[in-house]
């Protein structure tokens, strides 16, 4: 099967650099799948599950925010955070979800606090759905 070259970088460095057969991730506009010989393409990423198919096997990760660009068949994914499924601490994600829900349940919180808690809840939900 044909492949394309994929690099995934975050602020903490390069997390994936190699040949892949397929990349699926969530953009601000919905899920996209990138296959070899994709046209030049650029979009911003949302929060969600991402997976990379390498040699017929899927590797799952939680990917939040950033940019996806395809240029001359080179695929670059620049993520705010990228966590492989095996690295996610499920207990921590659950704790974070409960904390966010508790904050949201209070009535006297400011708009800003609500926003932060919502973002935290979203991240926690993404993480715990991906962790096995």
């Amino acid at each position: 099967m044909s492949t394309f070259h994929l690099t995934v970088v975050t602020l903490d460095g390069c997390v994936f650099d190699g040949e892949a057969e397929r990349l699926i991730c969530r953009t601000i506009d919905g899920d996209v799948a990138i296959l070899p010989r994709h046209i030049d393409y650029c979009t911003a990423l949302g929060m969600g599950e991402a997976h990379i198919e390498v040699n017929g096997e899927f590797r799952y990760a939680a990917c939040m925010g950033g940019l996806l660009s395809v240029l001359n068949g080179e695929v670059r994914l620049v993520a705010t955070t990228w966590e492989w499924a095996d690295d996610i601490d499920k207990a921590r994600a659950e704790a974070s979800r409960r904390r966010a829900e508790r904050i949201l349940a209070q009535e006297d919180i400011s708009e800003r606090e609500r926003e932060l808690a919502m973002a935290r809840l979203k991240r926690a939900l993404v993480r715990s759905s991906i962790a096995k």
Partner: protein
Amino acid sequence: MAGSMKALKSRMKSIESTRQITRAMELVASSRLRRARERRDNARPHFEVLYDTLQDIAAVNTEFRSRYLARREIKKTCYVVIVGDRGLAGGYNHNVFKLMEEDAQGKEYCVLPVGRKSIEHYGHGKAEIFSDAFPTVADLSVSDCFEMARLICDAYLEGRFDEIKMVYTEFKSILTQEATLMEVLPFHREKTEERRQSARKHIILYEPSSEEVFDAIIPEYIAGILYGGICESVASELAARRTAMNAATKNAGEMLDKLNLSYNQLRQAAITQEITEIIAGSEA
């Protein structure tokens, strides 16, 4: 004579213990420097990819408008000043303040200090402080940078200031670090022919639209710049401290040598005098 010998001895002791401290600080700085440089190198590709993409978007679409691209009349500037938490690093902190103050002359400005020395410097009403939520530069994480980027982007869009500049120290090599000023917002569009041509050659599909992609990426890009600036600054601080402490250790060694020499001279003089006294006594 015995008194001045004692004073010399105690002075040598205190220099010796200072030398021990400076040597320890040098060692600590050089071991942490390696990690700081690694962190800096890791953050580099992230910034480069984002920067290239933003430039490409800005280059292809000449008629495209973004709130981050528009240049408005500059009434107020926000400086993000990144320095260390501690002194004893030669001119490291001072160079940054000097550069910032030169640039800010005659302008209306506010400061977002990062690092304890920065807060101390601009505190006490010396400058208007935009936020003092980032007191220690050493343990700022990626998420803190995103928080900071969000803060300044929101304030920029609200019009609380019209440009954002970051003052940090660029790490050139272990021996040279340079205080640098960088314009963060409004986004500076590179107008080179090369950039335009490379952008024209590739027709890129932007989803949902180039404007939306641009606006979604900008906060990310700014967080990347801030994080990069912080990594550079931390590495520079450690390198500057290493150099300063190295010089201090050397100076202490030289002082010790000199003092040792005069101590030995004094001691010899005392012995000679005693011998002369004994001989004179026995002859009498």
